[in-house]
């Protein structure tokens, strides 16, 4: 099963006496690559999208654990996350604050501050190479040309004392050994590509001279400068107004298609996800609790948390809606409740939920849920 280290071994123990439950596919569900390809699937489409094809994934995260040593004790930010990403695919990681979605992205990107963070176990493969065992200077060569990231807050992510063009051009100077004027030409080309008006005149302007939307475009220009294969966007539009959000999401989509990039979109906004994602992983307290295709998850969520989220958001196109809130709060990562982390807030919780942590398992073709009662929820 898991059994690669002490954490997973502990987990293993809790599941071992779990004989009454369906144990088939635990392995697959957590490894994911076979789980997404279900043989003889009656609803499989003839033209299989790239992320369903067997073979080498662009990015693969296996059994990742991340913890932080804080003054209040050990915060278990990520507790066994598995992900895959293929070329041209958009994977949304959905979760509330503290669910571990940003930490996952930072671990993949290799920008976690260690310490306080620690990765006790797990593997992150980029095209078959494990990033976590790679020497740091080799990893640095991948960061930018291969894997790149757009951050939420463009104002604090850009350096206020250098012109934006200089910051974009830095990518070319560091990674491509370009001289100053050539790299500036590249910066102008990129600023034009992300639709910044008057790029030539504004290449030497400073971040504070741009609006929020324009700063986010500059961040995107930096991220795509070296044609990466994987782009991680961490809440790229959360700080922006809704009309600007629409512009930025359209730009990201366009760039993704142009370069056939794999895009990991980290967000808490169920609306944005519905608009752009192919697949979704829903995170809660450092675990993936549900994983499915975007249409399936919105039509019939297979985890009570996902269902609760969908019931709790007001919709623009509905009137007279009754909102149902999920009671309580997400748990603190230093004190994750035993059993299923969602059990104190769950209306379906039984004794088994307080004792056994449900593994992420196959419940239908191409979808997984980490709930003991996923089938009951779907059949309702």
């Amino acid at each position, binding site marked *: 099963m898991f059994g690669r280290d002490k954490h997973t071994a502990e987990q293993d123990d809790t599941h071992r006496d779990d004989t009454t439950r369906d144990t088939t596919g635990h392995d697959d569900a957590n490894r994911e690559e076979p789980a997404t390809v279900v043989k003889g699937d009656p609803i499989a489409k003839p033209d299989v999208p790239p992320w369903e094809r067997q073979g080498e994934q662009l990015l693969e995260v296996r059994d990742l654990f991340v913890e932080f040593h804080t003054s209040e004790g050990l915060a278990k930010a990520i507790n066994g996350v598995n992900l895959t990403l293929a070329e041209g695919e958009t994977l949304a990681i959905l979760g509330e604050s503290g669910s571990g979605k940003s930490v996952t992205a930072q671990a993949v990107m290799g920008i976690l501050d260690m310490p306080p963070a620690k990765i006790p176990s797990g593997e992150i493969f980029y095209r078959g190479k494990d990033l976590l065992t790679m020497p740091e200077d080799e990893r640095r060569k991948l960061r930018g040309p291969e894997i790149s990231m757009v951050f939420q807050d463009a104002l604090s992510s850009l350096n206020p004392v250098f012109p934006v063009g200089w910051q974009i051009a830095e990518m070319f100077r560091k990674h491509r050994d370009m001289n100053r004027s050539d790299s500036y030409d590249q910066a102008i080309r990129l600023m034009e590509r992300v639709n910044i008006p008057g790029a030539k005149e504004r290449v030497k302007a400073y971040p504070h001279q741009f609006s929020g939307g324009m700063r986010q475009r500059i961040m995107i220009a930096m991220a795509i400068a070296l044609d990466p294969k994987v782009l991680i966007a961490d809440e790229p539009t959360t700080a922006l107004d809704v009309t600007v959000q629409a*512009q930025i999401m359209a730009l990201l989509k366009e760039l993704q298609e142009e370069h056939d990039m794999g895009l990991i979109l980290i967000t808490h906004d169920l609306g944005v996800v519905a608009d752009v994602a192919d697949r979704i992983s829903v995170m809660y307290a450092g675990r993936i609790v549900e994983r499915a295709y975007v249409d399936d998850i919105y039509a019939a969520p297979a985890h009570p948390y996902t269902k*609760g989220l969908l019931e709790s958001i007001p919709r623009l196109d509905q009137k007279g809606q009754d*909102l149902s809130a999920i009671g309580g709060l997400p748990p603190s990562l230093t004190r994750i409740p035993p059993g299923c982390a969602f059990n*104190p807030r769950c209306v379906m919780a039984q004794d088994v939920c307080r004792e056994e942590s449900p593994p992420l398992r196959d419940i239908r073709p191409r979808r997984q849920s980490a709930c003991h009662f996923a089938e009951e929820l779907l059949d309702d």
Partner: protein
Amino acid sequence: MTDLETTERATSDRGTNNRDIVLKARDLRKYYPIKGGVLQRQVGEVKAVDGVSFDLYKGETLGIVGESGCGKSTLGRVLMRLEEPTDGTVEFDGVQMYEQSGSAMRKMRRDIQIVFQDPYTSLNPRRTVGEIVGEPFNIHPDVVPKKGRRKAVQELLELVGLNPEHINRYPHQFSGGQRQRIGIARGIALNPKVLICDEPVSALDVSVQAQVVNLMEKLQRELGLAYIFIAHDLSVVRHISDRVGVMYLGRLVEIGDEDEIYSRPTHPYTQALLSAVPVPDPTLRGKRDQITLSGDVPSPANPPDGCHFHTRCWKVQDVCRTDTPELEVHQDGDGGHLSRCHFAEVRQVIETQDVSGRGKDSLFAGQGERDNSDAVAAGAAGDGDVQSGPDTRAPSGG
């Protein structure tokens, strides 16, 4: 005072003037000076609120939406008289608010209260919840006699779904959602007629947002409050509001009831705003009417001449660049409502489904009405400096 006349006309047009108006704003303006140069002379002004007129009826919710910098928060502060307006009047229950002097104004504030956006900074960290929620009683000592105050505060905590035993705790011992409940308890302490809510849920997580929205609806039903609900989230505003006003660069560009704004918008900005909101339904992907605006909101220090929206509008003509359109009634296919556009025309951007009564059987129906959870014990309280006290029991289920 053309705005005033139009508004009067519109309200009588729609036959709603027989309802009680609790707050009447007319031609409100708030300009902030921009100072520059060595002598700090005034070199310009930011027109944060630039001629806003509306009526608020008893017990209704008026939503004010707009993007950042449109002046919606300034409007809230001016209505509370936390800022003195540059011009304009507010009539509250038939009394001119800006003509009141200190003590009379204080008395008036019993009936008009505010809840702020950020529950992390709007509560004094050095005071207990009992002191924070009870402070309005110290300022207005005649409301509740001194002896009964502790009990009154506990009743308020109970009303907003908090544990009354937590009266001696400090704000940092509560989670964000619980703090917003504290802010609301303080707001309704004096049993006001109007509660101004400035982005009350935008700092909260999705699953907690619904708890606070449901609480506000419950309080409105029980106490007959009128809300001015200021927010940038059009979905939340639709859910809670009876009427909605859309602001752009200090001006109301469209105002009407929920259906008029969401199903029959006539102003291009409202239409663009509605079309940009993502709907959590992947089956609608690519099928929705998408209007993509170019550029950003212009600076309020130097707003465009004529119609403020003309720099981003796809319908722009020469007249838009020179003449400011009035807020007047335009036909919307089913009557008419106020809109500030030379070329106002109805365009249905979103298809509305009526789902009244359908939520009763949802999985989490009726959840989250109370938030008794002990944020300290659960380790979920906001700041990192929480001392783990003797009280370390695990949060109870449900």
